């Protein structure tokens, strides 16, 4: 019982703070999420983190579902599948709520803020930081999975496809899965 409570507390603290720091969307906090859930709390392994990242990217819905999957494993490690489901829901709610409250507050004054210098400064200033964080996510994920040279080639090819075509990404991820199944990466 003590384990569950402690895990739940860690879930609340981690994901609520990630929620508020996730400028540019959920993908910018992946390095921090990895640092805490793999290295500090040891909820999941390096490889599992990379796996749930891939699965959540392929699943339908908003881009933060990796949080649901990590919450599940954190909970089920502490007290079995039922606690796992609670952990998943708790982690998801914590990832949504703080940022959601902020958006709720700001959206009521947003139209009036159209020309405010704060808005322009935040929009222009944080943009390059967001890009740096997203690139850091890709870098950390590549280090987290056992990425051999073949996997780097596949990542490179897929990046070209994603940046130059409008093919539905799910098809590309699926095809890459088949390539993996065939043992080519």
């Amino acid at each position, binding site marked *: 019982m003590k384990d569950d409570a402690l895990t739940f507390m860690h879930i609340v603290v981690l994901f609520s703070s990630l929620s508020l720091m996730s400028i540019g969307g959920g993908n910018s906090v992946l390095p921090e999420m990895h*640092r805490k859930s793999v290295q500090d709390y040891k909820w999941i392994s390096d490889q599992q983190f*990379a796996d749930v*990242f891939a699965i959540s990217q392929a*699943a339908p819905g908003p881009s933060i579902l990796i949080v*649901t999957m990590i919450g599940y494993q954190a909970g089920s490690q502490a007290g079995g599948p039922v606690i796992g489901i609670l952990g998943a829901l708790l982690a998801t709610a914590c990832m949504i709520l703080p940022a959601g409250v902020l958006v*709720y507050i700001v959206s009521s004054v947003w139209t009036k803020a159209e020309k405010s*210098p704060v808005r322009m400064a935040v929009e222009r200033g944080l943009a390059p930081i967001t890009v740096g964080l997203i690139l850091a996510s890709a870098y950390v994920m590549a280090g987290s*999975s056992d990425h051999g040279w073949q996997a780097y080639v596949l990542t490179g090819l897929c990046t070209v496809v994603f940046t130059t075509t409008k093919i539905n990404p799910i098809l590309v991820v699926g095809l890459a899965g088949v390539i993996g199944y065939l043992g080519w990466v």
Partner: protein
Amino acid sequence: MSGKGGEGRPNPSLFELALTFNHIALASFGGGLSAWSREVIVVEKKWMRDEEFLSAVTMCRILPGANQINMAVFVGSRFGGLAGALAAVAGLCAIPVTIAVGLAFAYFKFHEVPELKSVLRGATAAAIALTLSMAIKTGRKCLGGVVPILFFAAIFALNGVMRWPLLACLALLAPLAVLWGWPRKKESEA
């Protein structure tokens, strides 16, 4: 509810908000959630005009939180206050979260199966590519000039390579970046 018929301000019910965002979440399977939101909210339902929608997209992008969830909060609260925001977010998330819990259960049960490992190794390579392409697409727009490139490189090095805690990275760089981004010309004072 309000007696104005015809061309008045749209007045979707909580249920309709939830249903619409559920539809958006499932229709955008595999990506393009933002494009689908516009398709449904602006074109199909006519809840917002294009300019309003784009302005909302900007807000959702600069504030923390997943962009799609922020959009649900924005649209939901506009038409139904706090209840509307909750209904829209619940509609957007209910089925995807249920699926994610199911996937988590299945994955942690079967992750030792060699075939699954191989499939995921390939899928991870593509998922990383997806993240990379997001960095490339957004980077093209905002990395013109020495200062933005310095901010970009600094946060990448600190958070990605040196693995500093994110809070420390942001505390150091975000104020400087906002200061740099502050409009300098006097006419911006409205």
